[in-house]
């Protein structure tokens, strides 16, 4: 018999723990949604194509979009999350 898998909510044994299993944590989602906020220097990512120029300075819109596209392509973001965050990137 064919079975179409259903999307199930993740939960913990003791309740709805904030389990993200490879997804954004609230802190990461907030940071991504507020690109102007000061952030501590991050270690260089393995993929040099998404390195943000300027060290701790604010990345350009194009760089932010490129980073979001990378996150979408690597499966970190869903299409819906990508579109939502993309809309928040300052013009």
């Amino acid at each position, binding site marked *: 018999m*064919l*079975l*179409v*898998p*259903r*999307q*199930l909510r993740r939960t913990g*044994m003791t309740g*709805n723990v904030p389990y993200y299993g490879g997804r954004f944590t609230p802190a990461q989602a907030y940071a991504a949604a507020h690109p102007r906020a000061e952030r501590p220097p991050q270690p260089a990512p393995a993929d040099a194509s998404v390195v943000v120029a300027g060290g701790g300075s604010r990345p350009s819109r194009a760089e932010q979009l490129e980073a979001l596209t990378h996150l979408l392509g690597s499966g970190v973001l869903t299409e*819906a999350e990508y579109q939502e965050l993309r809309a928040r990137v300052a013009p």
Partner: protein
Amino acid sequence: MGPVQVLVIGLDQPEFTGEVLAELSRLRSAGIVRLVDVLVVARRDDGAFETLAEPTAMTPSRGELAAAVLGSGEDESASMAQDGLDRPRLPTWSLADSVPAGTTAAVALIEHTWAAPLRDAINRVGGVPLEETWLAPDDVLLLEQMMRQDAP
């Protein structure tokens, strides 16, 4: 009912070994866990899932309960994509995230009967679960070593 764990095990042969079943039986006798249902699935190369008959009946429902819980019988992906921004953004998963194409897996629903009183006690005092995970094997090894050192 206690918390129910979904355990997805990739298998070369679509059956649990007798050793695994014996251990689950022992844990049930001890009031620790209860094997609610087992579903065996094969994922075709095109990504579609098929349920397989159990070689041996491990539970009375023979996978029907698990299939009903884990499968919708209709394709949700299109509707989820359409209303993605409106749907509550809860972390979700499905068998499609876990079982690679071209493989077979046994999916067990295991009730942790021991955990129900603990969960209820946490709820009664207003406790809020903030994290729940397992220690990695290396960290368990480290823990064991430290416990041995502390032992009298």
